[in-house]
C-alpha cells in the first residue's frame, strides 16, 4: 500500500520533541505561554533542537519538509515567537557560509518589503522581497514599530544589495512553515474553545449542546484539517522532488490562512466576553494569525501567484487531459 496518512516514527518523534520543548520553554498553559516573549536565548534553544535544519539544502538537512511541517504545527499550537518562515527561507537563499549561523540560531533573519520589516529590530540578516526577487538588504536605520502581533517589527531605511534569487523559486520554503504555524495555532484555538463549550453552562445546558455553538467549531476544525492534509501532501511532494510541490505548498499556505482566520473568529465568539479580552485564551494566538496573514507576502498578494489549475495530488493525468 503506497497510500497512507500516518506519520512515520521520525515524524512522530519530531512532533513529540517539539511539543515537549514548548512545554519546557513556554509553559503548559495559554496563560503561561502568552507571557513569554521572543529572546535570542529562546531562539538558540529552538535551533539546538534542529528545527531550522529541517528541509535545509544538502548536508545541512536533519530532516525533510514533512518533518518541518510537523514541527511547525506544534510551534504554531504553542505560539512560539520568532521568524520561523523567514529562517527556513534563508537556509535556501543564503550562501552556505552564512547558513551555519542561521541554523545555529545565532543569526536572526528578517524578511519583508522595506520600509516595514517583520522582526526588523532583532534581525541580524535582512532579506527583502523586491520586484519578485529575494535581495539582501543593507539597513541604514531602524525605528521600532508596534504591531498587533506584539513582535519586534521595524520601520527601516534600506538599500537593496545582492540578488539571492527569484522568490517564486524559494517561496515554498516560506509558505510551508507559515501555513503549518497557522494550522497549529488554529487547531489550538478551536480545541480550546471546544473544551470551553463542553464545560460552560447557560440556560441550564452545556453550551456545546447548542448547534449555534457546536457547528461553527465543527466547520472550523474541518477547514483546519483540510489545510493540514494539504500542507502535509505538499511537503511530501517537495521531499519527493516533484515539480508540483511548490504550487501545492502555496495552495496549502493559502488554505491554512483562511482556515486559521475562520478558527480565530469562531474561537473568539465561542468564548463569549472572555474571548474578547487581551489576556484571554484566544487573542494571544489570533493576533499572530492575523499578522501572519498580512506580512509580506500577504495571503492576498500570494493568491495572485496561484495558478488557476492545480495539479491533482494523486494523479496529474486528469489535469493534463483537461488542458
Amino acid at each position, binding site marked *: *500500500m*503506497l*497510500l*497512507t*496518512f*500516518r*506519520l*512515520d516514527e521520525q*515524524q512522530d518523534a519530531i512532533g513529540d520533541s517539539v511539543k515537549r520543548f514548548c512545554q519546557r520553554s513556554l509553559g503548559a498553559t495559554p496563560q503561561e505561554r502568552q507571557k513569554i516573549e521572543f529572546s535570542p536565548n529562546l531562539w538558540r534553544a529552538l535551533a539546538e533542537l534542529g528545527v531550522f535544519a529541517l528541509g535545509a539544502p544538502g548536508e545541512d538537512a536533519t530532516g525533510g519538509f*514533512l518533518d518541518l511541517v510537523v514541527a511547525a504545527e506544534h510551534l504554531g499550537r504553542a505560539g512560539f515567537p520568532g521568524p520561523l518562515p523567514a529562517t527556513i527561507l534563508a537556509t535556501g537563499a543564503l550562501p552556505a557560509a552564512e547558513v551555519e549561523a542561521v541554523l545555529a540560531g545565532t543569526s536572526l533573519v528578517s524578511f519583508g518589503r522595506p520600509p516595514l520589516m517583520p522582526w526588523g529590530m532583532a534581525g541580524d540578516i535582512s532579506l527583502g522581497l523586491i520586484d519578485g526577487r529575494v535581495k539582501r538588504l543593507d539597513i541604514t536605520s531602524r525605528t521600532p514599530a508596534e504591531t498587533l502581533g506584539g513582535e519586534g517589527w521595524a520601520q527601516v531605511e534600506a538599500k537593496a544589495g545582492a540578488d539571492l534569487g527569484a522568490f517564486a523559486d524559494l517561496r515554498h520554503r516560506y509558505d510551508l512553515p507559515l501555513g503549518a504555524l497557522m494550522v497549529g495555532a488554529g487547531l489550538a484555538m*478551536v*480545541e480550546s474553545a*471546544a*473544551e470551553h*463549550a*463542553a464545560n460552560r453552562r447557560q440556560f441550564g*445546558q*452545556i453550551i*456545546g*449542546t*447548542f*448547534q449555534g*455553538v*457546536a*457547528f461553527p*467549531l*465543527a*466547520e472550523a*476544525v*474541518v477547514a483546519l*484539517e*483540510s*489545510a493540514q*492534509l*494539504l500542507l*502535509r*501532501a505538499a511537503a*511530501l511532494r517537495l521531499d519527493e522532488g516533484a515539480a508540483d510541490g511548490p504550487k*501545492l505548498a502555496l*495552495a496549502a499556505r*493559502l*488554505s491554512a490562512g*483562511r482556515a486559521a482566520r475562520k478558527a480565530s473568529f469562531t474561537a473568539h465568539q465561542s468564548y463569549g466576553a472572555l474571548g474578547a479580552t487581551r489576556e484571554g485564551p484566544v487573542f494571544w494566538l489570533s493576533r499572530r494569525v492575523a499578522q501572519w496573514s498580512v506580512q509580506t507576502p500577504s495571503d492576498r498578494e500570494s*493568491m495572485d501567484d*496561484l*495558478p*488557476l*489549475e*492545480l495539479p*491533482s*495530488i*494523486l*494523479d496529474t493525468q*486528469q*489535469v493534463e487531459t*483537461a488542458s
Partner: protein
Amino acid sequence: MKIALTAEQLAFRDEVRAFLQPWKHLNKYLVSENSPDLMEFFRAMAKRNWLSLVWPVADGGLGRSAMDEFILWNEIAYNRIARAPHSVGIVAKTIVRYGTPEQKAQWLPRIRAMDLTMALTYSEPEAGSDLAGVRCRAERQGDHYVITGNKCWNSRAHQSDYLWLLCRTGEQSARGKALSLIIVPRESPGLRIRPIEVMDGNFFTEITCDAVKVPVENRIGPENGAWSMMGAALADERHVQFLYGRLRRDYEDVLNFVRANGADRDPVVRHRLRELAIDVAEAELQSLRVAVAVNDGIDAPAESAANKLVHTLVCQAIARAAMEFGCESAVLVDIGIEILWRQSMIETIGGGTTQIMNSVVARQRLGLNGTK
C-alpha cells in the same frame, strides 16, 4: 505518509480509463441507476465483473480492494457518467454480510449482472434524517410480512425492480432497535409509487404500502436488526460516495467556460476561481483520507462526515460561482453550466444533511453534543 498508487493500481486506473472512452457522452452525472442510457453502461461494467469488484470471490465478486473500488468510481465520477448504484453497493454488501446462502444465491448473481435494480427506501414523510423514527410497519403473519405505511424522498423507486425497504417490526418506542430490512418487489399488489421530479432531472418518489404482502425470506438479516446492518453498509460505502473526481471535473468545466467567455480577465473572478481550486485540492485529500481508512478497515465517522461536508459544499460553491460570474450563457441548457447548479442543491441534503454531518464532526472530533 505516502500518497501514490501501486503499479497494479495504476494499471487498473488506466484500464478503467480505456474502458470509459466510449461512454464519455454520458457526462451529465444525473442518476445512479435505472436510466435507460445508463443500464447499457452498467451491463458493460458487469461483463468485467466490476459491479462486484470488491465482493468476496465466494460470492461472485473479484475480491479486490476498497482502493481499487475508489479508483474505479472516481474515474467514473471524473467523467460525470454515474454514481455507484445502491444495488451493487449498500444492498449487495449487506446481503454478502448478513444474507443466508439461499438469499445470496437468489439475489447476488442478478445484482452483479445488473439484471435487477433496487431503490433504497428508508426516508418517510416524518422520518428523514431521523431514521430511527421510521413508522412504516411490517406485521408478521405466518410466513409473510404485511407492510403498511408511507415512504417519501426515495430516489427512482418507480423505475426499480425492487425496494430495499426499511420498516418497523417492533415497538415504535424502541426506535432503531425495532427496524428490519425487507426486499419488496415493485409490482407487489398494494404498492403505489408516485414520482416527484427533482430540479436536476432526477426523481424522488412517494410510496404508499397498503397491506403489501412479502415472503419472510425477503427479510435480510435478523428481525429488528437493521440498525447495525445499515451502519455497517454505510461504512462499507463511505469511500465511493463523495469522490474528488467529480469536483475536479466540475471545476475544470467552469474554468473552461469562464475562459471561453473571457471572464477570466476579471480579477474578482480569478480570485474566486483560485479559492475554488484550493477547495478542490482540499476535497481530494479528504476523500483520499476516507478511502485509506476504508481500505485499512478503520471506522472513520468523523473523517467521513468531514469529507461529505467538504465535497458537497465545494460542489455547491463551484456551481454558485459559475452562475455568479456574470456570463449570460451560463443559463443556456446546452452549455452545461446550469446543470451543475441544479445538481448541486441536493448534495447537502441526500446521504446525511450538512446539519447531521456537522453534528457528527462536533461530537466525534470535538466532544460536543450539538443536538439543540
